[in-house]
């Protein structure tokens, strides 16, 4: 039975990429927080046109973050598969 290695990615630069991804998603969250409070302010001020644009922008931000995470998860899955194949051979 092959010995299972540690769970985290040991490829060169993997840590930097993970940190960068975390920072980008955190920045997206900050932007969305500002967007939410500004939209609420505008809505309470009687602006009925802004919420649609803001909702689309916020959804776009979420999809951007989701894309980053999905790409990371797929890359991780590929790494695990190739590692398992390497262990077998």
């Amino acid at each position, binding site marked *: 039975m092959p010995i299972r290695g540690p769970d985290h990615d040991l490829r060169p630069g993997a840590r930097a990429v993970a940190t960068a991804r*975390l920072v980008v998603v955190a920045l997206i969250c900050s932007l969305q927080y500002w967007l939410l409070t500004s939209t609420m302010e505008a809505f309470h001020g009687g602006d009925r046109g802004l*919420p649609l644009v803001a909702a689309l922008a916020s959804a776009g931000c979420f999809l951007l973050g989701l894309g980053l995470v999905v790409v990371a998860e797929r890359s991780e899955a590929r790494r695990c598969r190739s590692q398992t194949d390497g262990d077998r051979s």
Partner: protein
Amino acid sequence: MTRPDRDPKWREDFPYESDNDEHITRRDATRFLLLVSGGFALGNSLIWVRAQLSEDDPAPRVELGAASQLAAGTWRVFAYPDAGTPAILVRRETGELVAFQQKCTHLACPVAYQRSESGEGECLRCHCHNGRFDVASGHGISGPPRELRPLRRIALELDGDRLYAVGLLRPERG
């Protein structure tokens, strides 16, 4: 120390323990932030839905009593557009009648009318943080409200001597 029921073989060979062994990884933190991001997007969508629904609400027509009962330079409070939303009706020193929603746009304290005195013009004043609003337009003129949206103005209609609140006016741009 090993945990034979869960641990893989490599931990038996390298049986070190670390306090950070169970720390939250960057990947977990990113996933959590993504969840927060989804929450924000949902919040923005809910505001849009609320905006769509409130557009369909017809503005109620609420009787405010006899206009002649309010002397120049005085004010009173009423509720508009529903019983839970306070509003302020002012007869300015010029005799003009104006009405605004009463919640300060800073932190929702009630605003009150202040007559002109010792060189200061008449205004709507929020005593919580010393904010002042222009009594003609509802725009903030000093204190925290200066940077925020104006007070929502309420449209008034005079039918003989009877005064009615008939709707919320859209804020002026600029």
